């Protein structure tokens, strides 16, 4: 059965995969640059401006430098796991983008190509599953570093991600009750024809946003790598490109969660008050992708803006927030949504 797959389709998907992965990598690279620039702007500074025009080559310089830096694998640590850690982090970060609908469809060479790698009917769950695996990269790396600071970072990461996944899942359930589907593509289509989900699920979105911050290890939830407490947290012992992988995976995660949030709550590639179907599909696709990217950029800016503004939590307060505030709130949101749906369906 697998052999009967259309070869052209396979090729098309392969190209899409490559494009998506490299786009995420490129965007992640430039997100690092954006982070530095945004931080600088928010802090009355200039930010990197020496490498290339306006410092645009800065990420390339960083990447190149990391690439040619000496690899240090500490004694007494498991070499394989030490390398596996960042690789896993990178892998899981990249995997999520497979089910994201980047746009509607384009027509090329007489074929209609959907701008989604795989429209699985359990898309949301897939994202959720992959995200829940992301912590392994951190934990394995932290363990293999054989350093107490790293270990603490790994432990913090694990407990944080498990705790916030629950609230995230429950807040998603409320959303799923409204959409009635797990497929991301269908959700976008629904939002194109109706309201954006943010209108229906503001509380759910808020919880999801907070949990997304936590899952990406961004301030105020950046405990696993809290510079002032744990030096570098789980990546204290990493040098060269392995460190680069960790840093990159953080930014890819940020990018992907921005995309997911845009798709789930902000209509994905939908442009509000505008009917794309009147346009030629290719132009509509371009507009759609652009719209999605604008939303994503807004989210990434939000991530950074928050990071450079507020202090981080303490470990127990983080747990308190997750278990005692977000989960009850998410449960309440779920129940309320269910009640409202029942009331209107009667």
């Amino acid at each position, binding site marked *: 059965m697998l052999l009967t797959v259309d070869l052209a389709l396979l090729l098309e998907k392969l190209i899409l995969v490559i494009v998506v992965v490299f786009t995420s990598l490129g965007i992640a690279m430039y997100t690092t640059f954006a982070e530095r620039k945004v931080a600088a*702007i*928010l*802090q*009355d*500074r*200039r930010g990197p401006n020496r490498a290339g025009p306006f410092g645009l080559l800065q990420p390339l310089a960083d990447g190149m430098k990391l690439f040619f830096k000496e690899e240090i694998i500490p004694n007494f640590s498991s070499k394989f796991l030490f390398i596996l850690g960042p690789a896993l982090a990178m892998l899981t970060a990249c995997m999520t983008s497979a089910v994201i609908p980047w746009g509607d469809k384009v027509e090329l060479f007489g074929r209609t190509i959907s701008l989604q790698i795989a429209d699985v009917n359990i898309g949301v769950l897939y994202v959720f599953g992959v995200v829940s695996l992301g912590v392994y990269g951190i934990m394995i790396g932290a363990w293999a570093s054989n350093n107490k600071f790293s270990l603490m970072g790994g432990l913090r990461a694990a407990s944080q991600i498990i705790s916030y996944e629950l609230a995230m899942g429950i807040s998603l359930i409320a959303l799923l009750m409204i959409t009635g589907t797990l497929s991301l593509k269908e959700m976008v289509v629904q939002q194109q024809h109706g309201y954006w989900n943010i209108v229906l699920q503001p509380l759910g979105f808020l919880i999801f946003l907070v949990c997304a911050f936590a899952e990406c290890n961004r301030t105020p939830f950046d405990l696993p790598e809290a510079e002032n407490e744990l030096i570098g947290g789980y990546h204290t012992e990493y040098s060269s490109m392995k460190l680069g992988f960790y840093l990159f995976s953080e930014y890819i995660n940020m990018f992907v969660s921005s995309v997911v949030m845009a798709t789930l709550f902000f209509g994905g590639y939908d442009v509000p008050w505008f009917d794309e179907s009147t346009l030629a599909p290719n132009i509509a696709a371009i507009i759609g992708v652009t719209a999605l990217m604008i939303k994503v950029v807004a989210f990434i800016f939000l991530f950074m*803006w*928050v990071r*450079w*503004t*507020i202090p981080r939590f303490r470990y127990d307060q983080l747990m308190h927030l997750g278990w005692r505030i977000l989960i009850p709130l998410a449960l309440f949101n779920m129940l309320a949504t269910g009640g409202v749906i029942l009331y209107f369906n009667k």
Partner: protein
Amino acid sequence: MQALTNKAKQVSRKPMNFMEKMYLPAIFKGMMITFSHIFKKKPTINYPEKQRPFSPVFRGLQILNRDEEGRENCTACGLCAVACPAEAITMEGAERLPGEEHLYKEEKYAAKYEINMLRCIFCGLCEEACPKDAIYLSETFTPADYQRKQFIYSKNDLLIPHPKENPEEYQKALGNRPQKATSN
């Protein structure tokens, strides 16, 4: 503890009200503050291209002064070396020989005058100690360098350019401030 003075004033430490307990208003307020800084004028000085003005009394790299005829002012009295808390100044005096009056202002002069810039802490005590208007701390910061031996600044490195032989450089060293007989 009882109050020790009548000036004590309790700092405000009121418990959080509901809005503050919600996290978000305060976070939002903070974010607005950071956002407003986007539109602020950036105080950054692009250093190598532009330089921040130093104060006229800035204590930088030392300079050995000459008088108008280009004679060295230093008389090798050694007060600067004594005053230097870092013991960075090394000096050897010599008697002025006849015929050297155009070189040295006083009967004695410093045959060797070295400052170890790595030791120097730019406290300005040498300038203060000098009774002969000979050593000044200029508005130039000492540049970094690659090797340790580069930092022993000898007399040639410290002397101001000769006003007669090299008037342009001399004017540069004098700077653009109106000149007047100064004290201290």
